[in-house]
């Protein structure tokens, strides 16, 4: 269990990266920290990983105080940093062996651990090969395997799938879920990808400018922005005309329906409304005031992205 109370971190240059953060993370929970660049996600992880000292506040990890019991905490955590850190000149096996030995894992146990992590992450076949022949996804898997080698009770993942293609990303999510389940491990993950947080996390906090702005399960957060998103796809010849009339269109939509937000993309208009079924007539009526015809409508439910916009006022993607 991790208890963070009133955690504040101010850097030497005066930059306040974290401002009185309070989080409680239970054993076996996958907890997500969502936020734009510079929001304080990585600083939070660095404090939890004992790489940075808090300026004020307290952090208790499984009953151990981060300031007093630093060494003990290091024995129960595993860390995957934002950049993949593996030795390119070494084989996968050597990477795992060396890191395990540095963490103090005993020789016999180390072999078993290597067997287990390489099995779970499907790395067995490539372990004898040098890492510089690995793909980006393979290197990331090895990086996660290295973090798991000391059998940690808590795993920190700092944007683990950043820069990976969607297929590999999804595969990594499945591995993380599987590993967490098998070990009842607490996992704290920072991410830019909302679908990642949605898929993986039991609970999510949105962090912005060093403060937690909202915390809840993905379901709870999405409920807060209940409603529908209607995307009105336009014919290419109408797009230019739309751009000139943006203000007029917003005014017209506001008059016709109680919409939450309206956005213009390259080839469509996005309308956030309470209910597609109730509002479609009003949407059509608002559109009819202008000389363009919609090509099609796409209706979808609000996502975590909309939650993010609600609390931070901007897109994350």
């Amino acid at each position, binding site marked *: 269990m991790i208890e963070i109370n009133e955690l504040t971190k101010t850097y030497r240059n005066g930059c306040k990266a974290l401002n009185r953060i309070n989080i409680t993370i239970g054993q076996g929970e996958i907890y997500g920290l969502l936020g734009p660049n510079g929001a304080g996600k990585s600083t939070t992880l660095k404090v939890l990983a*004992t*790489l940075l000292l808090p300026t004020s506040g307290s952090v208790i990890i499984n009953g151990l105080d981060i300031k007093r019991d630093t060494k003990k905490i290091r024995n129960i955590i595993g860390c995957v940093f934002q950049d993949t850190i593996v030795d390119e000149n070494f084989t996968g096996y050597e990477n795992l062996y060396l890191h395990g030995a*540095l963490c103090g894992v005993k020789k016999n146990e180390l072999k078993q651990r290597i067997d287990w992590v390489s099995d779970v992450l499907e790395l067995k076949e490539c372990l004898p090969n040098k890492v510089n022949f690995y793909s980006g996804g393979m290197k990331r898997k090895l990086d996660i395997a290295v973090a798991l080698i000391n059998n940690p009770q808590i795993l920190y993942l700092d944007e683990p799938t950043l820069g990976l293609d969607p297929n590999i990303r999804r595969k990594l999510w499945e591995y993380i879920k599987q590993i967490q389940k098998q070990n009842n491990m607490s996992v704290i993950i920072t991410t830019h990808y909302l679908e990642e947080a949605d898929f993986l996390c039991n609970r999510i906090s949105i962090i912005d400018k060093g403060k937690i702005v909202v915390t809840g399960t993905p379901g709870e957060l999405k409920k807060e922005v209940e409603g529908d998103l209607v995307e009105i796809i336009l014919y290419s010849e109408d797009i230019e005309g739309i751009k000139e009339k943006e203000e007029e269109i917003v005014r017209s939509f506001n008059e016709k329906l109680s919409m939450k937000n309206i956005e213009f993309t390259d080839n469509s208009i996005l309308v956030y409304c309470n209910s597609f079924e109730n509002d479609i007539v009003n949407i059509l009526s608002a559109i009819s005031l202008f000389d363009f015809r919609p090509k099609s409508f796409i209706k979808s439910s609000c996502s975590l992205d909309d939650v993010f916009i609600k609390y931070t006022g901007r897109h994350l993607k």
Partner: protein
Amino acid sequence: MYRSMGLLIFRHLKVNIRQPIWIFFNLVQPLVWLVLFSQLFSGLTSIPGFPAKNYVQYLTPGIIVMTCLFSAGYSGIGILQDMERKLIDKLIVASVNRISVVLARSITNCILVLFQVTVLISISYLFGFRLTVNVFSILLIYVIVFFTSFLIGTLSNYIAIVSQRQEALVFMANFITLPLLFLSSAMMPKNFSPEWIQIATKFNPINLAVESIRNLAISQFNTMQLVVTLVIFTFLSSIFITLSCVKLKKIYE
């Protein structure tokens, strides 16, 4: 601490062995200096008062120390790369202490320099260098090479940790190692230099290493000189190691 330091030394050595091109380049450089300087200054031996009949015999101890300076002077690049790719973060989270991180880099460098010096001495034999065959004096030469490389390595690591930039490290390495070399008797006897250089040479710790190795090569033991050299080098190295660890601690706070 010793276990993690040993593992890190093993890691750094393995990285070097798997990239032999760098060991080769580091080896070629002193050999080029040996060939060039031995030809360029060979006439010095005809000047009355020159302490050797064969210039290679005089120069080789200087080239040995030059190898220590140039190889260990860039030891900090390894630490910088580890910092840039966040390997040090990973090591700290793995409970490896900062002193192991700093010492492992310096000791690895010393081991590589010992290897280079062995090859250098072997090749300088072809040019007329002669080492008095005495196991004890050869062992002491290696001890001095180790301590000299260690001192320069720890200084280089400290500059790297403070500056956190490769350009600054390269500039500082050249700025420090070249004057240290030329303000010593590596290439020319002290009494051949202007008076102010002679005074500077007296206070240059690198000169202690050059003269100790030169004496040991002909089995002349100057116990006091050896003790003073090792004590000064150990003292200076411990200062740089302490400063490096303090700075690393500050960076990670």
